[in-house]
């Protein structure tokens, strides 16, 4: 045996013996001082061969011995903490990987909160603070691949990355702030950069090095979900360092390449999200997507099609990265094709969540902005086919958001894919989404590349490309703003000028018949418009005159076309129709319902009919409707002004009394609401039954069970609304029966909007039909409905609602279930509450339904049975 080596072993063995047995502080101190020779850095260090032997074989054993001796008494053998300092120096100055492993091992083995545990935790904190983690990783990087000991490396890796978790387990509540993930992972990032710096330096010096351990560390940290912490530090540093240095770029590419496959997705996702722009991303990744299959799958499939949580800037970085390099551009074209295919697939439109559709649309637009016309021309037919299919499906959809998305993407994409054709132009209102999408479609400013190209010269001044474009945008805006600033230097503040409307000549008809005449025959458009505007007020003021011409008037209004662009035409027409229907409910409702299933109407008109019927029913069932005058009728010559003024006068007096009166009773003041008959009672049948009868008989132009599912959805909502408004009427039971049958027939409809309408219909049946009648008269229908709702549905909403309905019948405070429970118990709900009539906030949306349901539905003191 080599004498040198055996001497080392002898010395160490003696020292360990001294340490474990001696109680003499001085002796221990001198032994340790002697051993420090093997760590170098003293006046007379040991021979290099001895040092190496010591580090390789004996260091861990010595450290373990030192750890085992750690106790207050032992440290107190010498004053002033000399011994402790010397003890710690072995861990901080010796080979870092062994020290780290021994420390972690000791920490995990030491039970409970104790002196030794805390001492070691503090030592570990010092170890981290002194930057020894870099030494740990660097040690692994310097080792030649064949010398590396895989098990040891694995153990090291697990401990380096999992340090916060392990320490938290050991220390529980005593954990130090240094070990919190929020602080540890950024530190790890810093250390990784230092390691890479060392690697770059040694590569410059001609030494071979490997970054795979750092890659593994980064990868594992990302898999642990710490992308933000570690990459938040790494990426900005690497961005700065790779700028203008080929070596750094190569090291960086290598770093990403060496990430194990299972961590690739986490790392790439983190990088895409953290990188400030496509050029930076390109510098950090290089042509990774071409080299690594896994990376290509993540970048071109997973991030685009399987996930949709990423922000728009991340998406821009990702697709921009594909577009930056000519070798990667085929991937971009391929991605666009696949995106368009997804975008155009009808099944995706029906089943994918709206957020994902938006995400895909964004991606499509970004791709289009990146690709040149020539590249698009090659696959034009394919793209156009998918586009057209997607647009068609989207425009057919009954969800407005989907339709809008289709319109926006269709406009932009057709302009790019088929530039020579006539431009598509849809009418949609501008909103946040459309602005965002249109901004995405605008080609990226060319300023990106020069700024990138120029950056190596002035690395400090160069910003990330995204920020530069943002600043550019701000600069462009500023000159426009400055003009108005110059203007506003005077002291004259304008008054409100919103009342400055166009002047209408005073040609408004005074009689309902005049209105009808003006609307049908008048060629004088001012008169026509004035008649339309005046109609609602006139109808409310002259109910008798209106009844004489009600059907004729309804016909005129239903067929009225907007010949001149009258502001608010739709609203005016609808309000007038509602007024007519509310004034003469039976004949007009009969007429409208018959026209709903007539041949020559547009879908728009049919939906108008539904809206009008529902609004008129609401108006009819409004409590106190007879007492108050019409909401918008201005006092005209036929109506003395005093009758319109009276309620406001009363309100003012009541308010004054309320303010000046002190009440001694508890609780809110109870208001007696005047009872009045529910006018809807007498006519509900005219509204409801004709509508529900003909839905399954297709016409040439109108097929509710076929293409016109939007109208079917509206019909379901309207029927639900009518049912809800018919609460406490005598026909409610037969209406409920018919409605449940209608629901039963359509329960497996493919369109979500229709199903939502059906749910609203079922809920309004439960709300409106008295509980005892519900169980007595329609038990079969009810059971069927329950079976449908409780069945395991495929659509999340249905399941959710069904669960609400079926599980918490008695317990939940939910209105839904409360009503269910009333229905099942056969207990009449709260007779003490009076005077609330249902109010529809919005007839055709789930929000509206929810709003309805939130209204505590008390039975009416004004119901026909109890009415005066």
């Amino acid at each position, binding site marked *: 045996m080599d004498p040198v080596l055996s001497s080392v072993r002898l010395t160490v063995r003696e020292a360990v013996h001294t340490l474990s047995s001696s109680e003499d502080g001085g002796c221990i101190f001198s032994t340790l001082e002697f051993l420090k020779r093997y760590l170098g850095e003293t006046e007379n260090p040991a021979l290099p061969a001895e040092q190496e032997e010591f580090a390789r074989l004996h260091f861990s054993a010595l450290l373990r011995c030192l750890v085992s001796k750690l106790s207050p008494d032992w440290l107190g053998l010498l004053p002033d903490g000399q011994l402790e300092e010397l003890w710690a120096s072995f861990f901080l100055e010796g080979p870092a990987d062994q020290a780290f492993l021994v420390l972690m091992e000791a920490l995990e083995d030491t039970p409970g909160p104790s002196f030794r545990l805390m001492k070691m935790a503090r030592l570990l904190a010092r170890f981290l603070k002194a930057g020894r983690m870099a030494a740990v990783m660097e040690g692994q990087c310097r080792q030649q691949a064949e010398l590396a000991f895989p098990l040891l490396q694995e153990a090291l890796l697990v401990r380096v990355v999992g340090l916060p978790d392990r320490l938290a387990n050991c220390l529980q509540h005593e954990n130090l702030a240094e070990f919190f993930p929020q602080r540890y992972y950024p530190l790890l990032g810093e250390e990784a950069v230092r390691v890479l710096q060392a690697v770059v330096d040694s590569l410059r010096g001609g030494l071979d090095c490997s970054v795979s351990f750092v890659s593994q560390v980064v990868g594992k940290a990302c898999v642990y979900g710490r992308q933000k912490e570690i990459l938040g530090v790494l990426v900005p540093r690497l961005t700065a360092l790779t700028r203008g240095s080929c070596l750094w770029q190569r090291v960086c590419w290598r770093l990403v390449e060496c990430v194990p496959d299972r961590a690739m997705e986490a790392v790439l996702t983190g990088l895409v999200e953290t990188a400030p722009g496509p050029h930076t991303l390109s510098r950090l990744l290089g042509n990774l997507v071409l080299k690594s299959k896994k990376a290509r799958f993540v970048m071109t499939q997973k991030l685009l099609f399987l996930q949709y949580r990423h922000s728009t800037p991340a998406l821009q970085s990702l697709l921009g990265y594909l577009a930056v390099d000519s070798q990667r551009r085929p991937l971009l074209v391929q991605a666009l094709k696949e995106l368009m295919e997804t975008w155009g697939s009808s099944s995706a439109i029906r089943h994918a969540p709206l957020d994902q559709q938006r995400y895909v649309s964004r991606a499509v637009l970004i791709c289009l902005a990146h690709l040149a016309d020539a590249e698009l021309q090659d696959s034009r037919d394919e793209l156009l086919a998918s586009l057209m299919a997607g647009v068609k499906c989207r425009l057919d959809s009954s969800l407005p958001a989907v339709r809008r998305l289709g319109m926006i993407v269709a406009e932009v994409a057709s302009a790019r894919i088929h530039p020579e054709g006539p431009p598509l132009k849809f009418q949609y209102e501008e909103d946040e989404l459309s602005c965002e999408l249109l901004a995405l479609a605008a080609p990226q400013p060319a300023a990106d590349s020069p700024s990138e190209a120029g950056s190596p010269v002035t690395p400090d001044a160069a910003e990330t490309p995204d920020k530069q474009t943002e600043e550019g945008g701000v600069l462009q805006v500023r000159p426009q703003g400055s003009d108005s600033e110059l203007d506003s230097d*005077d002291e004259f503040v304008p*008054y409100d000028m919103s009342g400055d409307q166009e002047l209408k000549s005073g040609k408004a008809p005074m009689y309902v018949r005049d209105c009808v005449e003006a609307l049908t025959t008048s060629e004088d458009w001012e008169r026509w418009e004035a008649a339309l505007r005046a109609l609602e007020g006139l109808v409310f003021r002259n109910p008798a005159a209106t009844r004489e011409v009600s059907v004729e008037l309804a016909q005129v209004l239903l067929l009225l076309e907007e010949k001149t662009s009258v502001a608010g035409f739709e609203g005016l027409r609808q309000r007038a129709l509602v007024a007519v229907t509310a004034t003469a409910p039976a004949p007009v409702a009969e007429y409208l319902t018959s026209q709903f299933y007539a041949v020559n109407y547009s879908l728009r008109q049919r939906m108008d009919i539904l809206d009008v019927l529902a609004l008129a029913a609401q108006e009819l069932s409004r409590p106190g409707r007879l007492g108050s005058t019409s909401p918008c009728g201005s006092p005209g010559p036929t109506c003395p002004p005093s009758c319109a003024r009276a309620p406001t006068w009363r309100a003012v007096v009541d308010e004054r009394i309320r303010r000046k009166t002190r009440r001694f009773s508890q609780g809110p003041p109870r208001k007696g609401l005047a009872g009045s008959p529910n006018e809807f009672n007498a006519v509900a049948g005219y509204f409801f039954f004709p509508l529900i009868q003909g839905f399954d008989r297709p016409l040439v132009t109108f097929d509710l069970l076929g293409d016109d599912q939007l109208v079917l959805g509206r019909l379901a909502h309207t029927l639900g609304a009518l049912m809800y408004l018919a609460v406490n009427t005598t026909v409610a039971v037969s209406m409920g029966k018919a409605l449940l049958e209608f629901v039963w027939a359509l329960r497996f409809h493919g369109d979500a909007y229709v199903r939502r309408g059906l749910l609203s219909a079922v809920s309004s049946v439960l709300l409106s039909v008295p509980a005892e009648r519900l169980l007595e008269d329609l038990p079969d229908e009810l059971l069927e409905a329950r079976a449908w709702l409780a069945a395991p549905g495929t659509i999340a909403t249905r399941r959710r609602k069904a669960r609400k309905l079926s599980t918490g019948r008695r317990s939940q405070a939910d209105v839904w279930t409360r009503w269910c429970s009333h229905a099942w118990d056969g207990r009449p709900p709260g007779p003490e509450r009076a005077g609330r009539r249902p109010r529809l906030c919005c007839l055709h949306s789930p929000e509206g339904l929810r709003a309805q349901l939130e209204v505590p539905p008390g039975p009416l003191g004004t119901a026909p049975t109890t009415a005066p």
Partner: protein
Amino acid sequence: MAAPPDPQFVLRGTQSAVHALHFCGGAQGREHQRLLSGSLSGLVHIWSLQTRRAIATLDGHGGQCVIWLQTLPQGPQLLSQGRDLKLCLWDLAEGRNAVVDSVDLESVGFCRGSILARGQQRWMLAVPGRGSDEIQILEMPSKTSVCTLKPEADAKPGMPMCLELRQTDSSPRPRLLAGYEDGSVALWDVSERKVCSRIACHTEPVMGLDFDSQKARGVSGSAEKALAVWSLDEQQALQVRGTHQLTNPGISDVKIRPDRKLLATAGWDHRVRVFHWRTMKPLAVLAFHSAAVHCVAFAADGLLAAGSKDRRISVWSLYPPS
């Protein structure tokens, strides 16, 4: 943004539509300030702005509409133009109200006259002349005809609709701005009897114009839906500076406030519009009247009066001059 302002007060009692307004006597203080109004029934009312009552009524136009009122700078003398083809000079000193002189006019149009004081006792008067497109210049009080301004034969601008006599600081020669029926504004050099410059700034007849000599900028309103702002350059050439679109067509009168900060227009749409004169930024739309507004007038202290077909005169205090 503040709600539209209300009038400071409203003068009622003219019994017929108000067609002319004029402030006078503001220099001696509010108690001496008077508002003169001319009505469709041919009466001129003199209103005290302190008591807000009519203190005198002048009847000199035989029941015909009074379309123009102007006081002379040298004394309490009032000039009123009526559609009875007479222009009366009233003496208002010491409570008198008698016609001291009258000029017979020869035009039946609606064109208001204009005066230019040229000395202590002499002044110049511009009125529409005998021919339908002529303008007559008279030397007053002698009533001698100085000249007749007749457009060139091929110009055919139609009738003059509004006149504005001016003498700029730069040149002693009197100039006359005239708005014509064809929507053009012409600048006449009175002594040379020729048109210096002419611009077509409207497509409808020019109903009113006002000129700011300090900024060499003027504004005109017409029967159409726009105001035109034009300027006069060193070479005495008119140039259109811009047009300002209005909500409703028809402007019957425009006036610039004496401190040249505000511009007020009288609209056929029952509204008075107030603009910042330098920038033409709209400041207020005064919707008080229920019929077309015929005339607006500014007092020296910034008070704004508007007379309307609804027989009321509204008085507003907007952006008081500091």
